[in-house]
């Protein structure tokens, strides 16, 4: 009896332990599940109102980008990790600490997996730069976030390097963000010249516009469809399909999307740009030996001459 009782007690204790462990494990799984199911981070950073240190025309841009942000988390892969509009839009969230100071992109923009930046743009030399809302104070006094180009790297003016912390996909809802004559430099923002060779982290794809882009209620569904389609076909296809427009503005202009990726070699570059979807992300490029890009031949926007392949 005693032994039986002892055995029963042992069995009960064991059963209790198993139940407890199962309960803890189940609770753990339940607690982890939402994050695991939507383990990737989508973020949006941009500006509606240029009414502070850096004055420009204001537009309700976020209403357009919201459609992307509100769609991308509907597919079980991404969660909304930050909607940053106007507040704190100096260069800090976008610039790399290896390039300038104070910069904090590692905990801000580059901490997301898929990120959309929206702001007025500019074709500056051979690179894109975005118009900020705040200048960062007297010590910084910078109303622009500058992508790199040859001759401006390693602290010589370039500020925006993506992918060396986490980001895979950078979408630039901004004029001149992928001008034809700047594409030979666009690949430079896909890595941090100092950190990427050490940690192996690099951006996979950047999407933008040759020349001017457009804002308005009639363009918002394009952003939703872009996010939606990019779970079924490549991000590149989705960007190219949904952002193309013709016959807009006083000169019957086009809106001209461009998608650009990098790879260790030609095959790697093509494989990435043709097949990466929001739900099919490859490992980071091991090196940048090639860049490749899709464009609309002869696309004729405001703010630029018709797209001419620079090669």
């Amino acid at each position: 009896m005693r032994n039986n009782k002892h055995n029963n007690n042992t069995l009960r204790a064991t059963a209790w332990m198993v139940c407890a462990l199962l309960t803890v494990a189940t609770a753990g799984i339940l607690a982890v599940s939402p994050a695991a199911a939507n383990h990737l981070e989508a973020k949006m950073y941009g500006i509606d109102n240029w009414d502070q240190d850096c004055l420009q025309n204001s537009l309700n841009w976020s209403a357009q980008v919201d459609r992307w942000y509100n769609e991308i988390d509907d597919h079980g892969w991404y969660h909304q990790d930050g909607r940053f509009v106007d507040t704190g839009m100096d260069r800090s969230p976008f610039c790399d600490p290896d390039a300038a100071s104070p910069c904090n992109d590692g905990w801000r923009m580059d901490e997301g997996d898929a990120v959309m930046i929206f702001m007025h743009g500019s074709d500056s030399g051979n690179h894109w730069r975005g118009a900020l809302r705040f200048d960062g104070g007297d010590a910084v006094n910078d109303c622009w976030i500058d992508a790199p180009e040859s001759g401006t790297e390693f602290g010589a003016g370039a500020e925006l390097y993506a992918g060396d912390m986490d980001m895979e996909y950078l979408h630039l809802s901004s004029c001149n963000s992928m001008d034809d004559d700047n594409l030979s430099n666009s690949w430079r923002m896909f890595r941090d010249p100092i950190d990427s060779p050490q940690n192996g982290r690099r951006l996979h794809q950047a999407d933008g516009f040759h020349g001017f882009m457009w804002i308005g209620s009639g363009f918002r569904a394009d952003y939703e469809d872009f996010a939606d389609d990019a779970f079924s076909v490549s991000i590149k296809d989705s960007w190219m399909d949904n952002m193309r427009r013709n016959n807009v503005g006083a000169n019957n202009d086009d809106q001209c999307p461009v998608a650009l990726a990098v790879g260790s070699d030609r095959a790697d570059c093509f494989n990435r740009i043709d097949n990466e979807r929001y739900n099919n992300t490859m490992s980071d490029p091991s090196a940048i030996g090639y860049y490749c890009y899709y464009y609309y031949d002869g696309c004729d926007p405001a703010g630029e001459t018709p797209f001419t392949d620079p090669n």
Partner: protein
Amino acid sequence: MKITKRNITGLVVMFAALQLTIVPAQSQQSCPELHELAGGSLPSLVGDVDTMAALVAVAGDPGIAASMSGDKKALKLALNAIGARSLKASKGDCRFDGRRKRSDGRHDEEAVHCDYKARKTGATLSIKAAEGRLTFLDPTRSFQAQTDPDNEVTDSAAAETIKAVAIAFGLDEKQLDYQLADIARVKVASVPLSESGIPDTDAATVQVAEVYTAVPRQVQGVGVHGSRIQASIDHRGQVARMHLRWPEFRVCEGNEASRLGPRVLDPSKVKIAIAEEVGEQWACGTVAGLRSSIMYVPASEVDSPGTDSDETANDSGGDDDGSAGCYVPALVVQVTGPEPLEDSGEVSYAGAEYLLPLLAGNEDPDDG
């Protein structure tokens, strides 16, 4: 000045004057000049009661809702047209809201949203009938730059393809505005980099990947804002991807021609409305080009001058894509800023579009 791509003279005569009045880019030194620019852009028929009466008197059209929901035979024929016979809706892939089941056992077409999938190819077809939206995506037809040959589909072949598809999906061919059709080639380039990061352009490659085609919608010669069919054609001449935004079209009730007269806004008021709406966001001197054209616009999108309707549309949860509801004739105003010199580093303002009423009482009631 770029070559104008639109040929105004080809439009239906009665509505020719409704379409575009293009103001050449010109510098603007003061706010009164914005008024001048706005006035100069107005189509000559703004404020014309007879014209407005004709615009609101047009017949409605069911859009894709009628042809694509609840009619399996029609859908099968349409899928054949895009070579997607294997698309099937699994149980549960068609969603009904349950409130609209009719007495005959069928579901009201407005409540249906179907997602079809082909298991082998991963192709998908999404139909949101109530919104008039249909999306077909076949990843196996997307261009693979490493292996696929150049796309040699001609413009005329692409135009024939999209026309055939449009008809197969039940669109009224008279509503396809071929004069504004867009046919463009998607190309892909690859460029090797030296170890020091110098592009070797001599070793670069360029391929023709796809042919993109899009045709906007018109009703009796007047454009329907946000409504179009677009397709990407692969190197075999197949539809790789297609987007249809073709909702039911009907002019909103309460806009009967007989009661319209007093509600037709005078051109001077419309001009002021343009200047107010644009001037709220564009500083004096920053508008370089302004185009105004009369289109049918979803009533929910029409702005009230002097308010930030964009925010309202956003807050309202997305009924701002021409997808549902009724239409009113309205003025579509598109604004561009100055074009900076190449490489100058000067700001480029994104182009902006505003949708303004031509009839009093057609503003979005939630607006402002």
